[in-house]
């Protein structure tokens, strides 16, 4: 769009900076939870209570001097020499996963500033990774398998509907589209018993298969419209060259519809990554939890050490962040397109 055209949208008289200001204010508040997640993930509960808002500066400011008038507290720290030793040991504690001494102890006086990376509780991250790593592996398995199979089946099906009008294809199409009206929520209970009868309860395959079935309708709908818009000559040329239908899909449909397949794949992957209701109902074994159930149990089970929990949350987002960095354009467009489908 040229500059002259854009100027017609806003007024000539209007300045842009107030708009920037409002938008930035909104976006900053919107991103505030994620900022909190990031900075709290480096703190333990004590340092979080001391300074909840800002990231800890990389200095240790406490425990260099004890007020001689104050009685020694019951913190188990006896002499200043002991304390110095403790601080020397902090670096090793950070990586060995032991808990640092409480920083809010009233007998400690704030003395000199020392550069000290030990204030960052890296063991939160170690702990979070240990806790959530297996769940991430399970989720990656479910989401990748599910996305690939969903799209593969949907491409095959969409080709069937788009290429020729076969007997019964109208009826089958209608049967698929009716499902767009059915809300999934009423199905949850019978789906549970069905999975029980198929002895799929408590397996990752249950999540994958139900995900694949649930993804068919939307992906078929989008892909059929797309394949129908491809030039017919391409198919005819391929047919004259003796290509089977499968070959036509591999050599004509898939190369021509790369971006739309990418967009659909991202949407499907996001959906599977975020899903937690079905896993919550279906999964029982801790080793098989996906991220959703894992996070729910993390929320309920442990004594709340917010630093560790936030680190786990952050680790849970990393795979999506990586995907986002690599295909930002597909992401932005995919979300707009996905929004229009209804």
């Amino acid at each position, binding site marked *: 769009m040229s500059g002259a055209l854009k100027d*017609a*949208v*806003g007024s000539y008289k*209007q300045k*842009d900076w107030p*708009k920037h200001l*409002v*938008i930035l204010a*909104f*976006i900053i508040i*919107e*991103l505030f939870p*994620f900022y*909190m*997640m990031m900075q709290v993930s480096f703190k333990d*509960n004590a340092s*979080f*209570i001391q300074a*909840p808002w800002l990231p800890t500066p990389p200095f240790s400011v406490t425990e260099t001097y004890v007020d001689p008038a104050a009685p020694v507290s019951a913190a188990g720290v006896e002499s200043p020499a002991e304390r110095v030793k403790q601080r020397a040991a902090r670096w090793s504690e950070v990586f060995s996963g032991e808990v640092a001494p409480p920083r809010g102890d009233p007998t400690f006086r704030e003395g000199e500033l020392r550069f000290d990376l030990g204030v960052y509780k890296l063991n939160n991250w170690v702990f979070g990774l240990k806790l959530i790593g297996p769940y991430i592996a399970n989720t990656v398995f479910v989401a990748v398998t599910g996305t690939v199979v969903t799209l593969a*089946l949907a491409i*095959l099906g969409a080709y069937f509907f788009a*290429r*020729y009008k*076969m*007997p019964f294809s109208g009826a*089958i199409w209608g*049967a698929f589209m009716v499902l767009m009206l*059915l*809300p999934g*929520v*009423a*199905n*949850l*209970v*019978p789906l*549970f*018993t*069905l999975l029980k009868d198929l002895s799929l309860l408590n397996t990752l395959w249950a999540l994958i298969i139900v995900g694949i079935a*649930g993804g*068919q*309708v939307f992906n*078929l709908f989008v892909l059929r419209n797309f394949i*129908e818009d491809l030039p017919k000559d391409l198919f005819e040329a391929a047919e004259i060259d003796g290509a089977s*239908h499968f070959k036509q899909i591999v050599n004509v449909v898939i190369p021509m519809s790369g971006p739309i397949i990418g967009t659909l794949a991202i949407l499907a992957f*996001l959906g599977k*990554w*975020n899903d937690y*209701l079905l896993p919550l109902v279906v999964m029982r074994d801790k080793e098989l939890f996906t991220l959703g159930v894992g*996070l729910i149990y993390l929320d309920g089970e442990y004594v709340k050490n*917010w630093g560790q929990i*936030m680190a786990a*949350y952050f680790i849970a*987002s990393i795979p999506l962040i990586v995907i*986002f960095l690599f295909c930002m354009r597909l992401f*932005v467009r995919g*979300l707009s397109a*996905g*929004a*229009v489908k*209804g």
Partner: protein
Amino acid sequence: MALPLSRQKALREWKLYFFVIPSVLLVATFSYFPAMSAIYHSFFDWQGGDNKQLIGWANFKRALGDQVLWDSFKTVSILIAFNVVKMIPSILIAVLIHRLKSDRAQYLYRVALVVPMIVPGLVTLFIWKFFFDPNLGVLNNILDFTGMKTLLVNIDQFFGWGVFFDNVPVGWLSQPELILPALFIWGFPWIGTVGVLIYLAGLQSIGQEVYEAAELDGVGPFKKFLYIELPLILTQVRLSLILLMIGTLKDFGNQLLLLGDAGGPGGVGMVPALWMYNRAFIAGEFGYACSIGMILFLFILGLTYVNNKYVRVEK
């Protein structure tokens, strides 16, 4: 359009049916069968096992007299009203971004808006739960920090609500009176990524000549919004309104995770779908849960009908 085939040609292409069979089988097993089973079992007294007893319309009669269910419909209508209010910031932000002169800034803002989407929804939910925590939570910290707490306590004493007290942390998710306000605050400032992107797509289809005409007539920025932008994105607004209503009606994840399966203290946060979940998986009354699902389904079907009848989406 797909080419129609003569019967003879179709017979020669019979292998094509194999392309669609996997999808058909999957959908029949995991979408149609459960749906039919739900309708069927809503007429049974069924604990989820092999024993079931046909009891006719008794489940539905029970649902009609079920106070919890009706309260939950009341709650969900309040939540829908909240969500309608929460649409406003998205529209505002979309219009502001659209009016920016620089394309580059527009793109950057769009990317910034997508960032919340790459954090799993569950993580966002739990961060908000952490915000609501009475002792360590950010929300109470902000209230104390800005002195709003004192203000709230004074207002409370003036009206005699008995909700906010000095020196007592506000239990956003543990005081029955505060659950709905907490659900309202949830997600502040309520920018829906998908919403903003749809509105932006709608705004970008507005022709330049409309703006030029408005410019010539000396229309101010607010009137421009009221007479040009809002009417022209009304399709998108209506679409997301309906989707939002259906979504809110179906959803119970937020309530389940924020408040627990009983809908929080006093059951204030109970919504119909959560009640269905509760009956099925907590009380083991699968038959009754199915009939609640059917009632919910009727509401959603009604909304979908309205959607298809009155809201047309032009591509």
